[in-house]
């Protein structure tokens, strides 16, 4: 069996920010999913929630592959980060622009993964965008700075492979040019 070069990318973000949808949209293989029906107030937003991880793979050409891990959005599942943390290429923080309070979701994510995000190159990706989000982009950057984090803040449609490739390029740029 060929041993291909692989890179691990982890998606984090508030419940409903689009992690499972994103991995499902760009994965070359059927996504490994661990969704169960919600039993709490989240049920008013979506029927199911990820309780362990989503897993997909995406070809980068030349035999290189991107391994995509989507983690649960709720803080009680923080331990799942440790199960995928080894040899991590980077972290993608998804921010749901369509949410009533996108910054609250970001704050919750930053609190949940405090101490972990700063150890790995990361990209903050504003997803589910309708209209102009310049102000939100600035607020996201400001929120990151308040948490002692500096990294690219971009607007994406996380269902598009091109956007995924952009995220991957940025993660590698961060790894190359930062102290992380």
């Amino acid at each position, binding site marked *: 069996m060929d041993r291909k070069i692989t890179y691990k990318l982890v998606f984090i973000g508030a419940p409903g920010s689009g992690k499972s949808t994103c991995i499902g949209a760009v994965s070359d293989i059927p996504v490994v999913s661990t969704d*169960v029906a919600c039993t709490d107030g989240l049920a008013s937003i979506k029927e199911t929630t990820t*309780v362990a991880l989503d897993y997909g793979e995406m070809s980068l050409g030349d035999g290189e592959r991107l391994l995509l891990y989507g983690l649960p959005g709720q803080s009680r599942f923080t331990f799942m980060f440790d199960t995928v943390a080894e040899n991590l290429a980077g972290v993608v923080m998804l921010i749901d622009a369509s949410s009533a309070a996108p910054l609250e979701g970001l704050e919750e994510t930053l609190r949940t993964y405090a101490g972990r995000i700063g150890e790995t190159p990361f990209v903050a990706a504003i997803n589910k965008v309708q209209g102009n989000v310049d102000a939100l982009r600035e607020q996201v950057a400001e929120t990151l700075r308040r948490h002692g984090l500096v990294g690219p803040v971009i607007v994406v449609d996380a269902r598009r492979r091109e956007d995924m490739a952009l995220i991957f390029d940025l993660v590698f740029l961060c790894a190359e040019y930062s102290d992380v």
Partner: protein
Amino acid sequence: MSDRQKHIPVLLPTPDRRQCEMALDELVARNVDGISLALLAYRDGHPYLFRGKELQNAGKLAAMASSMAALSGTMLREIDSDSGEMTLLQGKKGKIIIVQVPAANNLMLLAVHTTEEVNLGLLLAHTKSCVTKVAASFGAAQAGQP
């Protein structure tokens, strides 16, 4: 939706809490030596109640049980389209068994921790008996409603 908010099941069947407590008490205190903990949790990782040794963070254990059960089920489905009913973890110092409660569309899970000397057959039998009682308590709770 923050985890800091109290878990409030929305329009879901509820078990009879007293009967669940009795079932867990019986499992932990009376039936099998070596069972140190029994935890009843919702399928999406919220704790419901536990018996046995003091837990620093029941919420984390409930979430872990939910993750393990989901991963086991996913792996079984990958191989032969089966769904997971039970997950067994065996370490040097003990075992953990996680079983779905066959009621209310598998709303709940029971996680049981034991020391290493526990007989596996006995553990399975008593755990399944406990789960059956918890499942029956859903019917009791509905019957008791006005």
